[in-house]
């Protein structure tokens, strides 16, 4: 496989969320606003890329019977580092993300890529695969965060864009429902619908 494909494929044909259906929990929970979504996307990308690299370097020395626990230890160490960095530099966002930073440990994307790719491939390829999957996950988070913040609160990155455009004066109202939990699920359903009607290969059965 070409190196460039490792980065490119997760954006569309092998997207972790819409095609592989991994890592849904955090994708839905942190996307009520754009800023936490972007921070979460960066954190997950860093963790997947580094975990992939480390596991790939160690892949010949890990006994297969205890590989899950070794992976968990490496991933949770990385997540603790990310958590400390977030608390030090963007404290307000880290409060908003609450338990979902810790839950990167059990994010299925991380474990899935470690099992499916890093255990059998070279370090450089694994690093690229990690970056690609992290970004493919990130793009869905950014789309969801953008839609939900714009239509739910009328702001983008905290900037009151609808108010500045003067749409409230002509009778526009925010759709508060879209920042509630169930709408996130329905929005992901719609994204999957759009993607699969463009790309017939991805349809099931």
């Amino acid at each position, binding site marked *: 496989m070409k190196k460039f494909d490792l980065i490119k494929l997760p954006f569309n044909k092998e997207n972790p969320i*819409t095609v592989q*259906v*991994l*890592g*849904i*929990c*955090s994708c*839905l*929970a942190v996307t009520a606003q754009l800023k936490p979504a972007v921070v979460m996307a960066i954190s997950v990308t860093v963790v997947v890329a580094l975990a992939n690299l480390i596991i790939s370097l160690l892949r010949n020395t890990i006994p297969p019977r205890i590989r*899950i*626990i070794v992976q*968990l*230890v490496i991933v*949770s*160490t990385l*997540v*603790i580092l990310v*958590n*400390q960095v977030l608390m030090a530099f963007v404290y307000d966002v880290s409060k908003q993300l*609450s*338990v979902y930073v*810790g*839950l990167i*440990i*059990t*994010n*299925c994307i991380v*474990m899935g890529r470690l099992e499916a790719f890093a255990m059998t491939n070279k370090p450089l390829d694994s690093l690229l695969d990690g970056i690609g999957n992290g970004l493919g996950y990130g793009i869905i988070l950014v789309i969801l965060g953008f839609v939900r913040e714009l239509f739910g609160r009328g702001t983008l990155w905290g900037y009151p864009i609808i108010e500045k455009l003067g749409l409230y004066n002509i009778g526009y109202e925010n759709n508060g429902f879209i920042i*509630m*939990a*169930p*709408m*996130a*699920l*329905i929005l*992901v*359903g*719609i994204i*999957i*619908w759009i993607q*699969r*009607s463009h790309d017939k290969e991805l*349809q*099931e*059965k």
Partner: protein
Amino acid sequence: MEYFNIFIKSVFIDNMIFAFFLGMCSYLAVSKTVKTSFGLGVAVTFVLLITVPVNYLIDKYLLSPGALSWLSPSLAGVDLSFLSLILFIAVIAAIVQIVEMVIERYSPSLYNSLGIFLPLIAVNCAVLGGSLFMQQRGYSNIGEVTCFALGSGIGWLLAIVGIAAIRERLRYSAIPPALKGVGITFIITGLMGIAFMSFMGIKL
């Protein structure tokens, strides 16, 4: 009464799936038939019921700020809470392993029906999420924590059995080809979530 309140709250209002999206991966992957999803739900409830109280004790007597003062007064200033993530996941992985061995030894029939799901549970976000919420919400004693763990597990079981029953019927309906499988499951989960929102604000 407080215990019952926490239990009802974690089953319906703070439902793991509909309010916090925890354990979505296995929820989507294993909800094809009612039978297997019931098995997974029972396994998750069981593991939550053991791991959350154990992690509560670890948090209370080892990790939270000043927790080590029972060992000696000079340790009162120690704060190990940054270690909680790695210790919680280690406890969960270890307990899942032990539970698997115990069930295999004493109840082979239960092992055969749960067996394949147990290793999956170590990396189920609902289980780690249960421990992290327990830490964040600051329950005051182990009874409350146990009620919370049992309620969360049963809420998860309820959600996965519900969606599995709907998906069994969906096989006979005409869904647009692009929505088949995962897409329609997301949308139905969203609709179920809206239904569960009506429990919001109920207090016993």
